[in-house]
């Protein structure tokens, strides 16, 4: 019988301490397998001991000490089998190795290991969720709709490559840092979207991914508070997630931004996201480098969430932000989003002309047909609108979105 307060202490310790324990062990023992297994054993020990002995005054310290002891036990067993001599020597080294260079959190080094560009994207995602997020292999497999054995193999293979190819556990040099950090942010945003876009489905575990991505985003901001894009990504995720519950109706249908009940938005997340966006605006005004894609997306979301109703949205601001975004990322998808905002400012006719120029590049993309269908509907071109809805429905993967599109189509005169 576990007292609910002990249970929540264990959950909290898992969220707060898992990555620190794994990262500390990885640095000390130079082996991700040992780090991961020993950390997992320490949490099992916590589940057994804390209900009996009470929550230790310093849960993180307790977990690190316990995990270190588990790791040393394992190395000792292996040493007894006549192997791993060099590791056995490590057992007596109770002092943490002296930091070289500026003191950094072990977790930051591990972030860069897990998101190393020499690993396949799906391996980066899996390793990040396992080693930094503390999700179990079964949970990760479930969230990405693959067999548990497949996911286990993916993680094992990635760890084997890290070991064999000597992928380091450290923060990259100053000259590579920005680019490598962008790679880390891409992994976190992918995890977020995987959860967010699927959250319309019936599966709560996939939705857990958004929470996990936000936790990782917070961790990264703690570790790199001065990087504008790190802050921008966290703000973007908070402002997006704030609208999650308003995004799907009770009947499981997608609710678009203009039809959402804004009273259902999470005001605490919005306030936090707005504060981060303001912090970045101030930093850029004070001479920091111009905002990158995550800061711009966060700013766009801030404009939407500032508006008390869809009608009050400052569309000219949104068009300006998308135009800036198009200068750093001139992809057709950015131009599509810009055109959707242009429709609110200059009318559907102007926007349709812009969108139709993207037909060649975006014909296979459902959002392109959704935007076209809506503009054609507003221009009372029902026949063409219906055809565009048909195409969008055909291409949409998400069931809640399909339901919504079918209703819109069937409402056409």
């Amino acid at each position, binding site marked *: 019988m576990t007292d609910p307060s002990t249970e929540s202490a264990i959950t909290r310790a898992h969220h707060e301490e898992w990555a620190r324990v794994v990262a500390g062990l990885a640095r000390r023992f130079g082996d991700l397998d040992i780090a991961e297994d020993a950390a997992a054993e320490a949490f099992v020990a916590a589940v057994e001991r804390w209900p009996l002995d009470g929550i230790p005054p310093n849960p993180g310290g307790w977990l690190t000490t316990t995990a270190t002891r588990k790791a040393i036990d394992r190395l000792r067993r292996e040493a007894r089998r006549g192997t791993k001599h060099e590791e056995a020597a490590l057992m007596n080294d109770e002092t943490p190795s002296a930091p070289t260079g500026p003191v950094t959190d072990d977790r930051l080094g591990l972030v860069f290991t897990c998101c190393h560009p020499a690993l396949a994207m799906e391996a980066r995602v899996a390793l990040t969720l396992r080693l930094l997020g503390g999700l179990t292999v079964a949970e990760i497999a479930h969230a990405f709709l693959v067999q548990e054995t497949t996911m286990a193999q993916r993680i094992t293979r990635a760890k084997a490559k890290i070991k*064999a190819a*000597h*992928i*380091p556990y450290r923060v990259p040099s100053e000259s*590579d840092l920005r680019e490598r950090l962008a790679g880390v942010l891409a992994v976190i945003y992918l995890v977020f979207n995987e959860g967010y876009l699927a959250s319309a489905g019936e599966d709560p575990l996939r939705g857990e991914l958004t929470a996990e991505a936000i936790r990782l985003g917070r961790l990264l901001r703690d570790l790199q508070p001065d990087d504008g894009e790190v802050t921008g990504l966290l703000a973007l995720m908070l402002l997006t997630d704030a609208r999650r519950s308003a995004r799907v109706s009770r009947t499981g249908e997608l609710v678009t931004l203009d039809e959402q009940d804004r009273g259902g938005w999470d005001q605490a997340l919005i306030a936090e996201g707005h504060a981060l966006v303001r912090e970045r605006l101030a930093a850029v005004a004070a001479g920091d480098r111009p905002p990158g894609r995550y800061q711009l997306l966060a700013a766009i979301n801030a404009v939407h969430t500032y508006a008390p109703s869809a009608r009050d949205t400052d569309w000219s601001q949104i068009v300006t932000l998308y135009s800036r975004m198009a200068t750093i990322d001139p992809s057709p998808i950015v131009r599509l989003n810009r055109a959707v905002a242009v429709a609110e400012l200059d009318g559907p006719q102007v926007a349709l002309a812009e969108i139709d120029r993207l037909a060649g590049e975006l014909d296979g993309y459902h959002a392109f047909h959704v935007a076209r269908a809506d503009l054609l509907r507003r221009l009372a071109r029902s026949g063409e609108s219906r055809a565009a809805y048909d195409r969008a429905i055909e291409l949409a993967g998400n069931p809640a979105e399909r339901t919504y599109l079918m209703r819109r189509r069937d409402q056409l005169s």
Partner: protein
Amino acid sequence: MVSDMPRYLMSVYGAAEPGEFGSYPSKEAMLQSFADTGAFNERLEKEGHFVFADGLAEATTATTVDGQGDKPIVTDGPYLEAKEYLGGFWVIEAADLDEALALAADASKACRGKVEVRPFQTEESFKALLES
């Protein structure tokens, strides 16, 4: 003295039947690439990364031997049928993969080709293999 730095193989692939100037568009381009590669090799030596490097003759000159049976079987040509073949390689020592990848980027620029970086087995990984 045997270094305990990790070793990496950096391989470069090229067309099965290269043209007049190998895979280069002109003689000048070829000579310039040779000069750049030479300078890169000197840098590897100076910085303590160099173990070995060389280019190979055309893949069509390869011979494959299977000595596992009673009598060795000798076949004309490379072991694998491919569109591109190993054309040259380096063996280097580097502190870790990040350093090896940075060197590979420069190697790729010098030799005008994609470079595959692959770690060698280490004493430790070999031991782990024996114990598994």
